């Protein structure tokens, strides 16, 4: 879990955020919060497909402690790479993680 560096007010609640402005506590997240975070990322409406990705990412995170790679996600979540980029344009892995209330993916070394 990432370290809190501040708080952010979303829907009247003060939620802990990390240096990347991602939520710190998994339990602070809900679908309404996700919609607010999505707006900040320029996505005005979260569809069922969006939530299919988000829920899959949260599941993997709770099992492994890191968000899945794009390759793993597009292999297992039922959303293919093309679709994933359409759902979360420009930097989908980072964007989807943020909307899912997860820290920025550790990614690659």
């Amino acid at each position, binding site marked *: 879990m990432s370290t809190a560096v501040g708080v952010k007010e979303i829907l009247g609640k003060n939620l802990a955020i990390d240096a990347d402005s991602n939520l710190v506590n998994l339990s602070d997240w809900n679908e309404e919060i996700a919609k607010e975070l999505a707006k900040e990322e320029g996505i005005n409406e979260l569809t069922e497909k969006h939530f299919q990705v988000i829920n899959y990412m949260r599941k993997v995170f709770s099992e492994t402690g890191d968000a899945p790679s794009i390759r793993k996600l597009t292999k297992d979540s039922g959303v293919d790479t093309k679709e994933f980029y359409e759902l979360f344009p420009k930097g*989908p892995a980072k964007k989807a993680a943020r909307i899912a209330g997860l820290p920025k993916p550790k990614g690659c070394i």
Partner: protein
Amino acid sequence: MKNLLILGAGTAGTMMLNKMHKALLPDKWRITIVDNVETHYYQPGFLFIPFGIYTEKDVVKPKKDFFPEGVNVINTEIWKVLPEFNKVHLASGIILDYDLLIIATGSRIAPEETEGLTGKLWKKDIFDFYTLDGAKALAEKLKNWEGGKLVINITEMPIKCPVAPLEFAFLADAFFEDKGIREKVHIQYVTPLAEAFTKHKSAEILGHYLEDKGIELVAEFNTGRIDNDGKKLVSWDEREVEFDLLVTVPTNKGADYIETSGLGDELNFVPTDKHTLQATGHENIFVIGDASNIPTSKAGSVAHFESEILKENIIHYINAEPLKAKFDGHANCFIESGHGKAFLIDFNYDVEPLPGNFPFAHLGPFKLLKETKMNHLGKLMFKWAYWNLLLKGKELPMGSDMSLKGKILDEKFKDIFITDKQQLSKLSGE
């Protein structure tokens, strides 16, 4: 008689073979190594081939020259590991039993993973330099190439030797300058990462070199396909980069048998404990080098630092003791920057690359995060050390764990560079 089986006789497998051959009693352990290729490639040297600095003879030797006497060598393809039965099936039909298995089959490029990459332009206007054939074909191409749009592209991470494409860009800049056609070559560095270096602190200190050398950075570009007719890269989000000559680092994957055996992740890398190097869920399987999924660079230096740790842990395992040796993620890379100069970076899981001096017995010190001639000489001398010391499992004048000796650690850097404060006090106490 017990069986130690090593899969893969590349850098990591050969080092482990030599170390375990010395460490294990010959009347108690039979050691077998399996690899389908009989030539050992000095892969760090591939980078120099396109520019005519090295040729094939600099980078190949027979693998058998590095095998100790008395080990069993099998030259065949691996088909499948059956961990629940402690057996490995080979493509030739032979079945091998093991008490202890070391997976060291590395990573390979998989250009077939990207649509259009191996199309009609492959080896005509599109080249890789991660294989000997690719590097040689590119050398031929560069001899007569008169300029245009040169694009260096990393398809997706992780890749083996993450600094190699950057070194390629620097060497290309110098190569075309020396040829007197630099102004006719537009160089673009196209990467899925947010910046040129995988380590953010290196990017902060060294990032301006790209600009100084007139190399354009195209960041966060995730290559979706290659348009052969339009001669352009197209990203998954439909951005386009045109090229006349494309130097690609394709997707990297672990060996196919890893997938067949159900031992790998989505890229066939084996989930591995990053400190003990034991395969997740298999206590008598250990993984070394590029084949694992541990979060450090896929590089020969890493395999070298891992090899001492792994030897110790294998001995612990045999003696039914806890696996006390812990790998710290130590990586050490010379980065060629052209015109006979290079940088050196040194880091581990918790400590980002730091500036300062890197102590090295007899030769050093080398300057960290600075462009010097000495670093370049270090890189060239490393070839000798690789063939004569490293592969044979002999000691190099540096330890496995990263050391902070010589690194500049004033207050400013402490805050910037050390991601784990406990790690700092542990390392400084050396």
